[in-house]
Each structure stands twice: as structure tokens, then as C-alpha cells.
């Protein structure tokens, strides 16, 4: 299996007034294709910073990140925007849906930026809604949906572009355990089906069981990487609302 992302000597320093805060240092990491990774660590460990840099949301202070043969650390704002549009999907903890748009419109936003024809957007969006099981709620605004439903919409939005890597930042942080599990199943099912790479950031160790690799992060360093051999089998058919 090929490597989709290679990270070398990554360092990120934040300036808080006069003080320097080292968020990440000496991080080397290879991400393999079609695998599920879990970045696990307490808050303040630097796991979100790592995720943000991998997704091209902020530049590293030092070191390199390459996606296939693209050098993400060397890209400018506009190239990063293109990179995100073409290759990555992003799921937020707080869903971050646009409140004025309905479910379908929220899901098809990435297609809107791609300049896809409205009719095609509608078709693809409805298929996606069907896949995540809330097809009948396509007209609903975010405020008219439950947290679980909102996160499904957010999920669908990340997948609609058919990206290479999906980044999920605490995707179940705002959900109850039952919904969180359903959510994880749904996410893993989609990733496997579409042969995509998934990187989840969490401080919840229970989620780690779903991943192929668990990357433990502590104080800005990778502490250890655990391969989950006895991982639970993911059953596609058990997805339900």
C-alpha cells in the first residue's frame, strides 16, 4: 500500500505575546492509503495542530508535509484552497453548517465551489443524503435537526467531493455515546466503501478501537504508534439512525 502523506521534522511554534509556545516538535509520520488513523491525546497535546497542518489550514514553522507529490508546506493561500477543494474533506466537532442553508444545500457546498451545475448538484446531493439515511430531511435547516442529523450532514459534506483524505476533528465530541457509535460506523463504512483515508482527532480512547493505527501524541511529540490488529470488524449493514 502506498503512502499518501509524508511528514518530516515538523515543528510548530506559536507566539503568545513575548512567549514562544512549542505546539509540535520533531514530528515524523507516514500516512498510508486507505487506512484509518486516530490521533489520540489529551487537550493541548498538539494533535489538533497536527491535523490542521496536514489539512493545510495553517503553515508549519519548520519541516515538510507532502501529499503525494505536492508540498503542502510550500503552498500559498490560494494553492491551499485548491488543494483542500480537490483532495480533502473536513468534519468539525461543532458541525459548522451554514445556518441559512438547508441540508441539501449544505451538503453540496463543495460542489458549488467547484462550479458544478445545479441539476448535477441536486442529484449527487440527494444520493449522498440517501447514503447517510436522512433523505427525507433534505429541506430542513440545521436548526431544525438534531445534533446527530447535523453531524451526518457535515459528514456528507466532507464526502461529497470524493476526497482522498477525510479529516475529522473530534467528530463525536458533541454527541451521546449511542449516536457517536452510529456516527463512527457510518463514517468507517463510507471510507472503506470509497477506499479513502481517514484521520480522526480525539481525546476519547473508546474511538481508538475503530482505527487501523492509533497515534498517541503527548506534549507536541508522537509518543507511540499502535497498530490495531484485533480491530473490530466494521459491519456496513448496521448503520441506522
Amino acid at each position, binding site marked *: 500500500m502506498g503512502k499518501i502523506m509524508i511528514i518530516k521534522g515538523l515543528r510548530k511554534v506559536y507566539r503568545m505575546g513575548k512567549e514562544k509556545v512549542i505546539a509540535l516538535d520533531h514530528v515524523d509520520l507516514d500516512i498510508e492509503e486507505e487506512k484509518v488513523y486516530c490521533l489520540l491525546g489529551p487537550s493541548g497535546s498538539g494533535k489538533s495542530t497536527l491535523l490542521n497542518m496536514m489539512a493545510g*489550514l495553517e503553515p508549519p514553522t519548520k519541516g515538510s508535509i507532502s501529499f503525494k507529490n505536492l508540498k503542502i508546506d510550500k503552498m500559498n493561500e490560494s494553492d491551499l484552497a*485548491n488543494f483542500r477543494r*480537490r483532495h480533502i474533506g473536513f468534519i468539525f466537532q461543532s458541525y459548522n453548517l*451554514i445556518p*441559512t442553508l438547508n441540508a441539501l444545500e449544505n451538503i453540496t457546498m*463543495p460542489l458549488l*465551489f*467547484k462550479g458544478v451545475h445545479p441539476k448535477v448538484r441536486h442529484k449527487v446531493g440527494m444520493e449522498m443524503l440517501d447514503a447517510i439515511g436522512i433523505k427525507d430531511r433534505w429541506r430542513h435547516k440545521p436548526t431544525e435537526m438534531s445534533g446527530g442529523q447535523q453531524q451526518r450532514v457535515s459528514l456528507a459534506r466532507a464526502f461529497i467531493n470524493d476526497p482522498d483524505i477525510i479529516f475529522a476533528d473530534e467528530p463525536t465530541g458533541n454527541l451521546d455515546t449511542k449516536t457517536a457509535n452510529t456516527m463512527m460506523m457510518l463514517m468507517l463504512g463510507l471510507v472503506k466503501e470509497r477506499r479513502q483515508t481517514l484521520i480522526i482527532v480525539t481525546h476519547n480512547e473508546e474511538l481508538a478501537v475503530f482505527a487501523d493505527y492509533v497515534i498517541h501524541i503527548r506534549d507536541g511529540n508522537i509518543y507511540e504508534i499502535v497498530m490495531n490488529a484485533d480491530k473490530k470488524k466494521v459491519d456496513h449493514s448496521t448503520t441506522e439512525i
Partner: protein
Amino acid sequence: MRIKDLIMVSMRNLWRRKLRTSLTILGVVIGTASIVLMVSLGIAMNQNFIKEIERMGSLTTINVYPSYRYDPMMDKNPSGGSVDEGMITDMTVASFESIPGVAIASPVLELSLKMTADKYVSWIQLKGIKPALLEVQKLKIAEGRLLEEQDKLAFLFGSEVAYGFYDPLSSGGGMWYYQEGNEERMPPPVDLMTARLKASYDMNFGEKAPPGGTGMKPVRPYNITAIGIIEGQGEHAYSVYTTLDQARAIKIEQDRYNASVSGTETSGTGSKKKTVETYNNAIVQVEDIDQVETVIETIKGMGFEAYSLMEYLKSMQNTSNAIQMVLGGIGAISLLVAAIGITNTMIMSIYERTKEIGVMKVIGAKMKDIKKMFLIEAAMIGFLGGATGLVISFGGSKILNFVGKNISLFGMGGGGVDTQLSVIPLWLYILAIVFTTLVGLISGYLPAVRAMKLSVLSALRTE
């Protein structure tokens, strides 16, 4: 992003803040309406100037006078033969005609005559001209026809000439034909087309002979045919035209009569025929209004005095331009305030939507798309404000014209029926809408760039 989608997204964003959007648009509406109405006042003023001047005469007509004060009645030309430079002769008229842009040039031979029409009497100023001149000037005839080269003892009358006739036997003089408090005009005392017309250079002709007689031998008057009446007011209204040949024939007899009366024939000039005939003035008709000024310059360069209504129009236009600038400036201030309002609204909405912008950036919005989205929003405010402002200006203009129909604002207008206080030509509508849209774009540019440059992470972290 597709342009249709961009517009749709912008529209939705405007719609979702209806009150704020409409208040901002209201600012633009007021700005547009005030600027358009102000400019329309200026345009109307200008048009009224032109109309007024056109009533006075054609703008393409140049009147040429000899270069010094020169009285043809006194012109006995004692030196004989030679003609001073600056006098108008057939030669000089021909040279006027050869100036590029000149359609026709005609000398004018003026004579003061006494006329009778049935029992009525009047003094008239007869002008001998080339009949072709009137054709080139596109003179409109109310009755009869234009002058022709072969006409003999035939006069063409201005519309006001008939009002100059009075009954010498009645005591009141009767020169006023307006009734008190009534703008409606009485018909002239005599219809020149049907009356029996006689004319004479004898100034006592037609009057009651003073007791004991004038002591002068009476002159046999000419029998005159009226060939037409010129339509409308203006420079021709008080004129009586005849052919150059006819005027010349009368003049020769008048000169001879004057000489015999005053007895100055002894100087012997009467026998010594003048070699070159001089005229009172000349009329030069220019083909195009744009050429008037250069032709005037050329004629002045040749040593003549030349005037046209253009000069008057120019000075009037300068005045109206200055007024327009002031009026437009007042309107511009309100539009400037509106522009600041747009910028303010856009900055506010970017603050509100910072998180949304961050999300859009994360899920793949191009930098340019974000910028365009806000630019279109701002342009839309400008456009909608401009369009609404124009509707209001249209109504306002109608009201102004209605109210101001009988009021002469700025002391101009002259009370003509078609005088308008406010005129909005098509180009003003188009210009206004383009301009307000542009104002929207410019006002929205800074906020849009700001939105585009928002850092993704800090945008996401805002609540």
C-alpha cells in the same frame, strides 16, 4: 463558482438581513434620487436655454457687419469708386461663401419703408436678400410660399409684422392687442395676405396730410403683393423680405428722390455711378452647429464683425454648467454618505459571517470566490438602490414638472408651454445605474478583500 450561483448566494445573504439591507439600499436610493434630480434640473435649464435661443433665431446663422460703424444712409462715398476694406460687397459675400462649412451667404440690403394695408399704416424694415437663403434656413411658412428669384414687388412678412399696423384715423394708436389679464392674443388688425398693400419710401405716405400740405411733391407708391407669412416667433418675426434685386430697385429710386428733395445732387455723385455696391450687412448660414465658431473666427479674421446666437448660448451654458456642478455636488455628497453606508454594512456582515467564511474556506471555497461573493453583494446594494432611486427620480421629475409648470424657477423658462423644470434623458438613467453599481463595487472592495484574507483557523474559532 458559477456566476449564477454567486449571484444567488449573494442575494440570499442580502435577503437574510432584510432590514439592514433595505436601510443601506435606502441610503443609495436617496443619494441616487438627489443626484439624478439635481442633474435633471441642470439639463432642463440647458435645454430651456437652447429652446429660448432657438426661438430667437437659428443657431447656425451668423450675422456679419462692416468692421466699423457705418451708416449706409450717409454713405455718399465722396472719394467715389473705391470701397473701404471691411465693407460688405458682393465680393466679400462670395468670399464668405467659400469658407468651408458655409452653406450660403447672402448680403442684406435694408430699407425703411412706409406701408399701407387697406386703411392701416405701418413702418417696416424691408430686407433684400437672396431668396435661396430662406430655403437653406428651412424657414417655415404659415401661409403662402417662400420668396423666389423672379418675384417683383412681392414681400414675405414675418408673423409679427401685421401687428405693427394701426389706423391713423383712430385716436388710440392701437398698438396693443393684448387684453388686460388675458394672455390670449387678439388677431392682428389686418390680414396682409388679402389686404390691398402699398409701400413707399416717403415717410408721410398714408398719414393724414398736415394742414397746408408737406410742401413736397407726393411719391407714387408701389403696389405690393404679399406672397407669404413666416411661421412663428424669432428673428424673422418682425422682418419683411424681398429679393435683392427688388430692394436694390427701390433703393435707387429712393436715393434719387432723397437727392432731389435735399438738393445735394449738386455734388455730382449722382452721375458718377458707384462701381461697387455696398450692403448693410450679410447673413452667413453654416451647415453644422459645430462649425459656427470656426466660421465666426474666420470672418472676424477677414476684418468683419460677426455675431451669432452661439456666443450667447455659450455664456448661458457656462452659467448653467456652474449651476449644474453645484447641484450635482449636493447630490454627490448624499451618494458619498450612502457609499460609506455600504462599506459599513459589508464590514458588519463580514464580522457576523466570519465563521461561515472560515467554514467555506475549509470546504474548498477559492479565495476569489469569497471576494466575489462580497463584491456582488455590495454591487447589488448599489444596483438595487440605483434602480429604486431612478424610479423615485422619475416620479419626482414628473411632480417637479407638474408643480413648476407655471412657476419660472431660476428666472428662466420664458413661460413657454413646453418648458420643463426637470429633464431626465435616457443616458442619465443608464449612467446613474452604472454609477451606483460601481459605487457599490468600490465601497465593497475593501471589506471583500478583508473577507478573502481572513485566516481560516481564526475565522473558525470565532463564535
